[in-house]
Each structure stands twice: as C-alpha cells, then as structure tokens.
C-alpha cells in the first residue's frame, strides 16, 4: 500500500462532489426563504458532505443505496441528474419522481438509489430486504443504508442489524452521527457515546471515522464495502460529523450554543479538504475557482429547470398507487 492510495483524480472528484452538494443545498436554503418556492420541509445535510461523498464514492455501480430524509448529498454523490432532482425537490412535474416524492421521498432506482424513507430508522429493515435480494440472486453488489444517530434509537434499526448479522447479508450500515436528534443532544438521546460499538452486539465489525475528513471516510468505506462484498456479512460505520443547520429549514437552532457552531464551522469538511489539496499541489486556487464556479452554474441551471417545470397536473394525482389500475366497478 502506498502512502496515499487515493489518486489525484479521485481527490478532485471528492472535492467536486462535496462542493456541488454544498452549493446545491445552499441554494435550497436561499429558496426556502422566499415565499412559496419550496413546498414541504427542507431537511439538509450542510456540514455532512464528506460522509455522503466519501461513502458513495467507495461504491460500485451495482451497489444499492437506501437513504433518509437528509438524502440530497447521497443522491448527488451518486451522480443523480441535478435538474430533475431540483425539480423534484420543488415537487414539480419534471422531477425525478414526477413531483410525487417532493424533497423528502426521493428515489432514483436507475442509479440504484432504491428508496428513501423519512420514517426515522425505517431504512435499515428496507436495506435488509435489498441486501437479501442481492445475496439471493447471487448477483454481487452490496447495500448501503444511511441513517442518523437519532435513528439509532429506533427498534427497527436493531432488528435489521440483528437479522443482517444472522444471515451475513452484504449490508453496510452507515450511521451519520451529526450530534443532534431534533433538538436533543447526543447524550440526551443515546445511551452510549459510541454507536459503532453496538455493531459488536450484532456480530459485525464496527468502526468510527472522522466524518468531516472525506478521505478517511472514503478509505474506511472502501475497506468495509469490500468486507461486505466478500461475503463475510454486514459491517457498521459511525461517521462523526455535525448538523450545521437545524433539523429542517424552519428550525432556527435556538437550542444550539453558537460557540459550538463556530467550532464545527472551523472543521468544515470542504474548507479542510480544499486546503489539503492546495497544500498537496493537487489543485491550484484557479482550478478550485473553476470547480466552484462550475458547481454554481450547474445549480443555477437546475433551479431554472425546476422553475420552468409546472406542478404535476390533476391527471397524475390518482395514478401510480397500484401497478395495474382496477377494472371499472371496483374500489378503491
């Protein structure tokens, strides 16, 4: 193993992915403050970009992702089309789910972001099913489920970890510990300071990683994805990061110590990585400006696309409940 197995090209991709996620979500923040631009609850992962980018970049195309209410980063890191993603977040007809997902229930099965669930913790049992199918079909591929430290308190996560452990499913649990569950601090909602240690109780390797260090996340992602892929069973990563904004955009974080926000702002995964790439001569200031500008432009184009798209018409409101519509005279 070389001193740094992460080649410069990949490092640039990691940076590009993170800045795209940041710009994309910053735009959502701005639009949320305008009246009637963003329907529903906008729930963002500002500050957590290194986790999404690091883990998703460690995956193969056949790998399946199950996401949650903070899904934008996972989707963008996976290469989802920005335009139809932004349109969907605006609940528009040209959105990736025809305006039926809105910002919270995005799924893009074409790129194996199979499902998102906003029922906290519910992604894990769904991921058991996806990983079981991969195992059953002997088709290769692993499933990754992203969930938060809040979700770690849900019984469904424990049921899923247990079942995945018994059946040795190719399932990577990624707990994004962003220090908050709603307005509750970690120690108020979690009996252990180290969620990854619970992995032991389900007979799987559990590791903790600095979730604001994209290369560290990527490296452990590759290692444990490989573990799952090799047929040894599930694995667990706890990525320590920070939720820089409120639970949702309506949340003004009145319960957060401003000093704590400053401390974590200084650990911003993007600023840190930018500096590192400059120090290592991987990128120049000019190249960074170009990458940032490109992200900015893509987001602007996406917003314009979303703005131009109409809301879905009444003709689709009643469709897509069942695969085959019922014959006439049959309810509902």
């Amino acid at each position: 193993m070389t001193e740094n197995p992460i080649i410069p090209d990949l490092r640039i991709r990691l940076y590009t992915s993170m800045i795209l996620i940041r710009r994309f979500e910053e735009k959502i923040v701005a639009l949320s403050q305008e009246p009637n631009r963003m329907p529903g609850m906008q729930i963002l992962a500002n500050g957590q970009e290194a986790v999404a980018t690091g883990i998703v970049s460690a995956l193969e195309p056949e790998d399946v992702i199950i996401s949650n209410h903070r899904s934008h980063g996972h989707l963008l890191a996976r290469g989802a089309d920005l335009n139809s993603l932004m349109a969907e977040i605006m609940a528009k007809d040209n959105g990736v789910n025809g305006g039926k997902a809105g910002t919270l229930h995005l799924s893009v099965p074409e790129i194996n972001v199979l499902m998102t669930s906003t029922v906290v913790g519910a992604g894990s049992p769904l991921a058991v099913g996806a990983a079981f199918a991969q195992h059953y079909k002997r088709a290769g591929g692993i499933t990754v489920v992203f969930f938060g430290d809040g979700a770690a308190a849900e019984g469904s996560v424990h049921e899923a970890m247990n079942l995945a452990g018994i059946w040795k499913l190719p399932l990577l649990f990624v707990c994004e510990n962003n220090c908050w569950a709603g307005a509750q601090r970690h120690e108020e909602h979690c009996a252990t300071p180290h969620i990854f240690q619970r992995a032991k109780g389900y007979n799987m390797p559990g590791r903790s990683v600095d979730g604001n260090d994209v290369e560290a996340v990527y490296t452990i992602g590759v290692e444990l994805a490989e573990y799952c892929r090799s047929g040894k069973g599930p694995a667990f990563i706890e990525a320590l990061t920070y939720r820089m904004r409120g639970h949702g955009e309506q949340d003004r974080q009145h319960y957060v110590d401003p000093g704590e926000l400053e401390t974590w702002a200084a650990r911003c995964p993007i600023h840190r990585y930018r500096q590192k790439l400059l120090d290592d001569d991987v990128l120049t200031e000019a190249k960074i400006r170009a990458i940032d500008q490109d992200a900015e432009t893509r987001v602007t184009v996406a917003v314009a696309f979303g703005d131009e798209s109409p809301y879905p018409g009444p003709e689709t409101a009643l469709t897509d409940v069942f695969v085959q519509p019922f014959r006439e005279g049959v309810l509902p």
Partner: protein
Amino acid sequence: MSQKTFGQALNEALTIAMEIDENVFIAGEGVGVSIHQDPNMPTHGLLKKFGRRRVKDTPVSEAAIAGLAVGASCMGLRPVVEIMFFPFITLASDMLINHAGKLRYMSGGKSSFPLTVRVKAGVGFGAGSQHSHNLESWIAHSPGLKIVWPATPEDAKGLLLSAIFDPDPVIVVEDLMLSRMTGEVSTGDIRTPLGKARVVSPGTDCTIVAYGVALYTVIEALKTLSEQGISCEVIDLRSLVPLDKMFILDSVRKTGRLVVVHEANRFCGFGAELAAMVAEEAFDALKGPVIRVGAPQIPVPAAPTHEKIFRPGPEEVVSAVRKAMGK
C-alpha cells in the same frame, strides 16, 4: 380436484409458486422449523423441499420481516412473509402502511412491491386480544395495499397464488377457525382473481355480505331465515381491496336490503364502508336500513363465555336480517 384442508390448500399454493418462480421465497417465524409439528400447517415440509436458501426462518422481528419483504420485492423478488397473528401486524405496520403501500406512488411509478404477507386471524381459540384482533380495516384504509380473506380451501389456494404473482403488495388473511375445514381443491396452478366476490347462495329479499369464518355463521342462519320465509342472497366477499363494488351494488339493487357480517369490531369496521358505499350509490334501491353485525367495542376476550358474546352468532344474523326487513 381432491379434498384438502385449508392448510393443505395453502401449502399447495406455496409449493406451486416456489416451483414455478425462482424469485419466490418465504420467510417468517417458524416457517421452516415450527414448534408445531402439524402437517396441516401451510408451510409444512417446505424447508425440506426447497432448502434453507428459499425458506427462511427469522428471529422474532416483525419490522425486519416486513422490511425484508418490502426491500426484496423492490429488487424484483416475490417475498411471501408470514406475520404469525393479526395483532402482531402492528409491529410490521410501519413497513406495510408507510412503505409497501406508499413507496410506489412516491416513486412516481418507478418502483413496485410484489410482496405477499400471510397473516393468521381468528377469534375463538381462547388466546385473548393480543393474538386475536382482526385489523382488516387498518389495512383496507391504507392506500396501496390489497387484502383478501378466503373462506374456502379452493379460494385459499387460488387467492394466495394470485397474491404471490400480483405486482402489488397483498395481505392474505388465513382464518384460524377454518384451518381444519376441508373442501374440494382444484389441482395445479389455479388463480382466484383479486377483487371478485361470489354468490354463495342466491336469494331475493336481503343481501348478506360476509368474509372468512363469518360466512359460515351466515350460512348457519339461513335455515332459520328461510323457515321465516326470508330469502337471502349470501355473498362471500373474498377480497376487501380491491372491492367488488358493482357486484354488491347489483345484488342490493335486486334485494333492496343489505346486512354485513364480520368478526372484527363493528365500530369503524369494514362493514361501515360497505354500508356507506351502498347508501351513497344505491340509496334509491334500499327498502330498509343497512345493518352491520360485528363485535362489540371491546378487546377480544379470553373466556369462552365472553368470546361467545364477542363473536357474532347465527341468531344475531337472523335478527339483523329481520331488522333490515323491518320485522
């Protein structure tokens, strides 16, 4: 055709489904090795026949069992999972109600969930309210889920096979009070269409709709009713969702009267939906009030004396029909 019990008919359906489609697997608590060494069990012998890859015993984890079904079906498999008793479906209900029923709609039609949940229901075996609680209205009320309730071994086989190969999530209710009942069952891969009710006994004065074991309570009442000169048309609903609306309306338009009988709590029970549907769509044909027969609003009791009060009997059906007739 041959004589089979309900359990054997279900077993035949599972066997055929697994034989014809490699994507079918079964999972649940004790579907492979069960505490009951009962050849009448629907999953009896399947582990031996199909092996551990396709017959999956699970831990006692209803949310994970249902999540397994939702996730695996989204990946193209056809899971058939068992939730042991109907009240335990509360533990799986997030996966069924919030996920199986909603994710296709929210995906904009991109995803589908061809899963089957088998669940045992029934009142009358003394187990009390945490093993007996018919929650069909919960399921029927939740968009995106289908639910069927066979009353004969033939339909048990035919509806289960249809459910397994249906492209959408279907809950198949297996009535414990019928598990040892025998009946003629067609051989081979038979499919009873979802959403088709059937007339069990034709009549002219009053339509009686029932499903599951309640159907036999109605049949028991028929003799008395006929002695009283009342001719009833008995409909076995078979499928609650999809609901064969026109079939029921046509019968009610003919008889002018409707009685609904089920073992679930009467209050907000499925009978309320049928009563409302008929009131809205066939009011002009009604010659009397729609009457619902169901359980009182109490948890299912344990004592046989109390169970008897809980479960509607033939005499209640008779008095309901008389009431509908204005007698």
